[in-house]
């Protein structure tokens, strides 16, 4: 009986030594998961997640302080890929109304702009050009649609317009019609209807 206990103690000590060594020697410093999350975020730096930008939000997610569904620009797809990355459950978008809009860009209505540079200071990606007392303009290709410039404008000359669809960035719609879909029938009738309308001379 005593021998059993002693043997067990000896064994436990050995494992204890090994574990005690491993705990310090093989310590992993910090998790690169923040960067992985950051790479998925849309980088609009819009702050709609209530964090100061995409990277802070990524840090918060990694630390488990923020849910994954706070990013309207990333939409459902982002939630899905974050859920895949972190192996957590997919959550519905936090604020459903916002997620419905497509991507937008800001434009400055040139007649109204007074050249106050407030929007330039607000832009997180330096996508607005202009100098004091001069008309400003948005570099459309660089604009992330974060809307941060809209509020500071004293004359309300900035508008968000949807990104223009062209043949180049057009995407095939996902097929909608399947037998489980009660609307299937109506979609087909719409389709026929549309075609018929176009044919009429």
């Amino acid at each position, binding site marked *: 009986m005593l021998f059993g206990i002693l043997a067990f103690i000896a064994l436990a000590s050995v494992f204890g030594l090994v574990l005690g060594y491993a705990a310090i020697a093989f310590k992993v410093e910090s998790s690169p998961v923040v960067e992985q999350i950051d790479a998925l975020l849309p980088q609009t730096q819009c702050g709609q997640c209530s964090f100061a930008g995409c990277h802070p939000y990524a840090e918060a997610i990694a630390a488990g302080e923020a849910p994954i569904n706070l990013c309207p620009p990333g939409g459902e797809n982002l939630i899905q890929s974050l859920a895949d990355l972190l192996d957590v459950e997919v959550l519905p978008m936090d604020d459903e109304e916002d997620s419905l809009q497509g991507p937008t860009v800001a434009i400055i209505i040139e007649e109204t702009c007074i050249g106050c540079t407030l929007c330039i200071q607000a832009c997180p990606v330096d996508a607005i050009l202009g100098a004091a007392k001069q008309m400003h303009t948005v570099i459309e290709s660089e604009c992330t649609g974060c809307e941060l410039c809209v509020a500071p404008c004293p004359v309300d000359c900035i508008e968000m317009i949807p990104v223009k669809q062209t043949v180049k960035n057009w995407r095939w719609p996902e*097929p909608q019609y399947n037998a489980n879909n009660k609307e299937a029938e109506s979609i087909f009738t719409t389709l026929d209807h549309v075609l018929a309308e176009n044919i009429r001379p």
Partner: protein
Amino acid sequence: MFLAQSSPFLKPELSVSKMMLVVTMLMIPGVLTAIYVFGYGVLVNIILAIIFALTFEAITLYLRRRPIAVYLKDKSALLTAVIIGVALPPLAPWWLTFVGLFFAIVIAKQLYGGLGYNTFNPAMVAYAILLISFPAEMTTYWQTPAMLASQFEGQTLSLLETINFQLFAQLPAGMTIDALTSATPLDIVRTAVLNGSATIDEIHAEGNAFGMLGGIGTEWVNLAFLAGGLFMMRKGLISWHIPISLLATLGFLSLLFGSFELDSNPSPLFHLFSGATMLGAFFIATDPVTASTTPRGRVIYGAGIGALIYIIRTWGGYPDAIAFAVLLMNMCAPLLDYYTQPRVYGHKADERDDEEAS
């Protein structure tokens, strides 16, 4: 609003509904033969099965809030029902069919997501569940085949008497269930082999198990299903891979082992033309939803079923093995699909050689 709809615009040549219907139609020769051999019980089974199947399907579709008409029209439940109807013992009581169809349609099919989403062949799930739950009923209610009955002056039932027995468990006066039924050839062989009580030759001499090709009576049913299956293959409804590899493996194994122990191993022909071999090879194993989909995967899938049939028939606890073999291979199908992907055009040839050249 313009709604983009993608090509192709040609009318599709086939629909699920048509496919299922044709397959069901091609089972008719086999079904008729089975009715001739095993009496009206088979017919009653099938009709009961169809009624139960459609009812269960409609109810579950309703509960799942799916369009009932659309899915009832796909006729997959019909096919499942007919397969179960043929597979059940001819004199099975009605509640056996009822329980079977409940498990087939509700549990194995609809709870998995309905047509196309079930991992396991519904008919075989039903059969396996019935077999392990009600082994006595599943093995005893086999009416003596017509050939044997006439030979040994056994009794048969008329259609009305059959219905009366199956629905109300009432036999005409003076008849016992023991006199009506007899063990299936596979059962006889299995028992004899196990007990070592009789050699194959002795069973031959007794004349109540072996027909010309396979089991007495069942050989004709198998031949009829073979004919239907071959027609189906010719029509391109099923590919050759699964049935051929299944039958080849089963034949090969029985030949191989048969050549070692002639006394206790029946011939390959017996294995191929007894039990539900042909039904299984052409109508059950080829169920598209649960089978492997790649060409090489299908060959392995068929061969696996063939091997399992032989193994279970010879060393297993139940006489026939189609259901278990099919279910076991159903489990492997996704894996097979993954590991037997054909080489895509233009990709490096070192992975796999071009197999589907035709």
